[in-house]
């Protein structure tokens, strides 16, 4: 039986998502997972006491130095800590966000890596305009800023984009290798992203000033 794993990185002193409803949902997610699987949280050292104080009932909590070392920020890249957590797994795992709820024991798959649902898909008979706009507004917007190179754009799959709220890994060692390559190759991107965030903030500031 696989473990269900969660990740939390504290980026600010009083995170706005930690409302009563938000913490209630955290508990529903963890307690429902506990019914079927062993649960483990990977967190930074600063957030450890939050989970203990509020009795979010994980079976196990692991403080990861690498999560603690990610700089705090008012404009965090929320997604990166999950990728850090994946690197430390040595056996098959199911990673869930705190707004996902498991309602039955998870039945494993033979595929190396499985996403529980789409973020967006153009692989339907009927395509809602909102889906096209979503792909344009999020994925193309950033694609043209980050990857508008001479690279073969047919390699990029905009047709089916997964949601990372629910991920299963059947091949942790190969995924770990891919993540290390990912980290190596996105080093320059992370610096660029930090710069881009500053530009977005400045743009918003000027728009608000007009």
């Amino acid at each position, binding site marked *: 039986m696989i473990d269900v794993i969660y990740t939390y990185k504290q980026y600010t002193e009083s995170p706005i998502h930690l409302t009563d409803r938000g913490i209630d949902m955290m508990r529903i997610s963890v307690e429902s997972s506990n019914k079927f699987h062993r649960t483990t949280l990977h967190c930074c050292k600063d957030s450890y006491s939050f989970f203990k104080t509020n009795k979010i009932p994980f079976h196990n909590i692991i403080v990861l130095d690498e999560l603690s070392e990610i700089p705090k920020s008012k404009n965090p890249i929320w997604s990166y800590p999950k990728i850090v957590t994946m690197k430390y797994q040595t056996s098959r795992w199911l990673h869930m966000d705190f707004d996902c709820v498991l309602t039955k024991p998870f039945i494993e798959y033979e595929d190396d890596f499985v996403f529980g649902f789409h973020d967006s898909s153009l692989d339907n008979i009927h395509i809602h305009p909102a889906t096209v706009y979503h792909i344009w507004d999020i994925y193309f917007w950033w694609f043209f800023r980050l990857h508008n190179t001479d690279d073969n754009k047919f390699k990029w799959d905009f047709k089916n984009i997964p949601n990372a709220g629910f991920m299963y890994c059947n091949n942790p060692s190969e995924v770990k290798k891919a993540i290390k390559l990912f980290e190596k190759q996105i080093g320059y991107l992370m610096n660029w992203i930090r710069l881009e965030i500053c530009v977005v903030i400045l743009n*918003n500031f000027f728009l608000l000033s007009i």
Partner: protein
Amino acid sequence: MDKIGDLCCYFEQFLFTKYLKDNDINVKILQREGYHNTNENSDLMLLEKSPLEIKRWVDNGWFHFPLYKSISEESLHSIYTYLWEMFNIKHNRTYKKII
């Protein structure tokens, strides 16, 4: 500021998935009900009007909850109550929110 949130989606869902595939990792995306972009509006409206429609997601084995979208407190309470009862979770707790 929304673009920074969008960047997280781009980074984690799009770019990361590409790297997995480029490294010959077999990636599958399952079709499960629950809130996601392609059904966002219809599901939110449904949950707002009839909160216990969430039951139709429960049988699927898991679901993604639209926690940060606008659902009235009354509807949200009905949904949470259903889940608390389903999993026999004690509630009405007070939390310490400051980390």
